[in-house]
């Protein structure tokens, strides 16, 4: 204002006009600012913000870090020595111009041990699209679309001085839906969400590999073996891997989904009618219990959209609040700092509702998938809620001190600007709060923070192995990772002993896979895994048994007696082989758990389970009419046979259509329908064949034996 005042004192008409403009400009700015403040509340200082959070009884929330040490935090990880790294995503929601990136990775330090960060060091600056990190070999893997980077400090000052591009080619056009959420799995693979975005990925350490399409998929890779491949998904921002290797992903409107069949199985052949293998496992969608006010822009936008739906005569309603639309950062808690009932829960932020949601996962022995339920006492409230509309819980971290950490982006607005009508956007500053951020620690109400002290990097391999059974699985996973990184084979005897003797199934699983990483597996270890008392270890044993054909009889035996989870994996793993005993085992699996669509898909994903010989085996086993799975399975199997369009198999299939059980329960109709659908999608069917099938379908009212005759005629003529 001093400058304006002095400008206005200049004695000239020009200056008078300039002065008038300046006053008008500032007056308008002031009005806009006032309007914005009236419409959208301002921020709370960190110590007041923490007071605004309500958590379930028995727990408390402490402030761990705040501005200026952290702003816009989206991911946090501790390395093997307890150093805390945080990714700051200050460019959100727009993409930065080259050279003007504001993203960072910072090291947060608590030098006096009081549980609150007092120092921060910029590990990496000018980071574009950085969204997640994972410690690896003394440095950090970083997802920064379109790349996955490796950064390392080699001088001990916590500033990265090496910077490598490991993977390139990921989608980079939407910061809310890009490569992200790096997680080290117990199976030695590193998993990442890709939201199904198209991209052709190349890997620096495997230049001979052709570019890999990740369209429709997430992503996984192994740096110890130079492997990379698509993974079933897609997940958006939030990936939770449980102790058993089950994978759960977050999507903005669907807060928890489980991936069921890995991509490598659903893409063994290209003839499946669908490859989708992800399931919404919530039993309480889509409701959340929001306590904060609805922002004006959102209420207005919803009103307009609903008017548009009504004008279009659509029986559809959009909700401005209380429904999941901003789910973020689903994280599996497996620490030992919170009471036992919290172990194994998945925590998900809801940035639009200003709350944290908790899911308790359960899976009966006869179920393929988990069910995510609200915890007792949280039927009508959320785990954490706030009336502060700036509270933006985006992610979490299960930490070495055993507690759960919560990352609060702390922004006035979180939304893709282009999704808000222009008139509503006026006066909204999408960067209001980009200088702020909070990280909270969640702990038992009566507890006092005690900083853990450890240096896993200095520990010998033999002393890392016992950590597999640590009650805080953070230590188990770090020990596992360090042993994979080091490739020190002198530890093999200790790991084998752990695998044989550990009472904790989680420890046996870590041991099994570290042995795999050290090339120390043999058939006796795999067979021991197949007969383990834990269904989960059995399931992983089945994965590893795929390389040991001699294990097939034990694998088949598991189909007869295993839990649904084990049977699903047994079917998938046996699908690596192709013979009559495998097909017989598939029929066994279908008779036990065939009502589960994933079990049907598992059978069909195998070469052995997707041919006319599978149908022949099925019919020879005289499947009961009352079996519910039969029709969908017969239809999808017939689709596979049609899509493959192998002449010998088609001829065989056509002879099977006269088999006595087929007319029962309308199976003949579903078989022919599935087969014709498959032929029409076949990439090796001639245009003449496709036209003949379409002509046959036109005017077809009832499928009878006459239809079979027509099909025979078509294939006799054309093939």
């Amino acid at each position: 204002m001093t400058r304006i005042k002095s400008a206005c004192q200049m004695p000239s008409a020009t200056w008078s006009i300039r002065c008038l403009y300046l006053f008008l400009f500032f007056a308008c700015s002031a009005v806009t600012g006032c309007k914005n403040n009236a419409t959208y509340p301002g921020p709370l200082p960190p110590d007041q913000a923490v007071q605004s959070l309500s958590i379930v009884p028995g727990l408390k929330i402490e402030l761990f870090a705040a501005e200026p040490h952290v702003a816009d935090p989206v991911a946090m990880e501790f390395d093997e020595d307890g150093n805390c790294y945080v990714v700051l995503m200050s460019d959100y929601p727009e993409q930065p111009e080259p050279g003007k990136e504001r993203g960072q990775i910072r090291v947060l330090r608590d030098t006096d041990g009081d549980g609150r960060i007092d120092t921060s060091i910029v590990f990496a600056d000018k980071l574009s699209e950085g969204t997640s990190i994972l410690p690896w070999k003394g440095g950090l893997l970083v997802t920064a679309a379109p790349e996955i980077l490796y950064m390392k400090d080699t001088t001990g000052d916590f500033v990265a001085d090496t910077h490598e591009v490991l993977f390139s080619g990921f989608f980079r056009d939407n910061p809310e839906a890009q490569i992200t959420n790096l997680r080290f799995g117990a199976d030695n693979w590193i998993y990442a969400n890709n939201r199904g975005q198209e991209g052709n990925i190349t890997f620096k350490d495997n230049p001979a590999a052709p570019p890999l399409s990740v369209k429709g998929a997430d992503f996984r890779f192994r740096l110890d073996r130079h492997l990379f491949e698509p993974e079933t998904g897609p997940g958006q921002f939030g990936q939770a891997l449980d102790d058993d290797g089950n994978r759960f992903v977050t999507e903005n409107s669907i807060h928890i989904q489980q991936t069921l069949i890995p991509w490598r199985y659903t893409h063994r052949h290209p003839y499946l009618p669908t490859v989708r293998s992800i399931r919404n496992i919530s039993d309480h969608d889509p409701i959340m219990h929001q306590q904060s006010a609805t922002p004006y822009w959102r209420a207005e936008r919803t009103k307009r959209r609903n008017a548009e739906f009504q004008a279009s005569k659509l029986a559809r309603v959009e909700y401005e609040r209380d429904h999941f639309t901003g789910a973020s950062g689903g994280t599996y808690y497996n620490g030992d700092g919170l009471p036992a009932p919290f172990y194994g829960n998945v925590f998900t932020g809801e940035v639009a509702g200003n709350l944290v949601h908790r899911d308790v996962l359960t899976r009966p022995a006869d179920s393929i998938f988990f069910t995510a339920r609200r915890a007792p006492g949280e039927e009508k409230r959320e785990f954490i809620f706030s009336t502060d509309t700036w509270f933006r819980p985006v992610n979490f971290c299960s930490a070495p001190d055993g507690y759960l950490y919560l990352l609060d982006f702390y922004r006035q607005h979180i939304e893709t600007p282009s999704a808000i009508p222009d008139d509503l956007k006026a006066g909204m500053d999408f960067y209001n709060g980009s200088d702020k951020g909070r990280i909270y620690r969640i702990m038992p109400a009566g507890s006092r923070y005690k900083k853990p002290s450890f240096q896993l990097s200095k520990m010998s391999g033999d002393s890392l192995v016992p950590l597999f059974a640590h009650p805080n699985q953070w230590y188990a996973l770090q020990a596992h990772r360090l042993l994979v990184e080091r490739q020190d084979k002198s530890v093999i005897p200790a790991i084998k002993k752990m695998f044989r003797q550990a009472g904790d199934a989680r420890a046996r699983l870590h041991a099994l896979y570290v042995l795999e990483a050290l090339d120390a597996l043999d058939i006796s270890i795999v067979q021991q895994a197949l007969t383990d008392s834990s269904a989960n270890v059995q399931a992983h044993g089945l994965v590893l048994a795929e390389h040991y054909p001699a294990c097939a009889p034990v694998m088949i035996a598991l189909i007869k007696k295993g839990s649904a989870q084990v049977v699903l994996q047994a079917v998938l793993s046996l699908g690596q082989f192709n013979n009559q005993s495998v097909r017989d085992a598939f029929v066994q699996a279908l008779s036990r758990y065939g009502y589960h669509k994933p079990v049907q898909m598992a059978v069909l994903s195998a070469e052995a389970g997707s041919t006319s010989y599978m149908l022949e085996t099925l019919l020879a086993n005289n499947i009961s009419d009352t079996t519910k799975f039969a029709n969908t399975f017969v239809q999808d199997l017939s689709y596979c046979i049609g899509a493959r369009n192998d002449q010998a198999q088609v001829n065989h299939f056509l002879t099977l259509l006269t088999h006595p059980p087929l007319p029962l329960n309308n199976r003949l109709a579903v078989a022919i329908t599935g087969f014709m659908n498959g032929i029409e999608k076949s990439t090796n069917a001639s245009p003449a064949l496709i036209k003949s099938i379409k002509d046959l379908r036109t005017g077809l009212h009832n499928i009878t034996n006459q239809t079979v005759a027509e099909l025979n005629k078509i294939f006799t003529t054309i093939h």
Partner: protein
Amino acid sequence: MNTRRQFIKSTLGIGSLALGSALLLSRCKSKKKTSSASCNDVSGVSKEEQEKRKKLGYVAVTPVADSKCSTCKLYLPPAQTGDCGHCALFKGPVEAGGYCTYFAPLSEE
């Protein structure tokens, strides 16, 4: 029900109705989807809106099995067979089998 036809008839008279109907028909005709490619024609869409489509990751063919515009709560289906659908997020024609990163599944409560 007060239809558009009745409105035009009562306010502009029958002569205008013929003209109005002709215009209406020609508009409908121009909107008519004649082939699968026509829903990818964004020549009538402003640069800004085209940029918005790109930013939201709109593609005419979904990369994600079973997630497509026709099953999204933001999709506005065509008023009549043969037309293109639209989206509540951006302007211009939309393929029923398309996809964008803002996909939000239609859900039952």
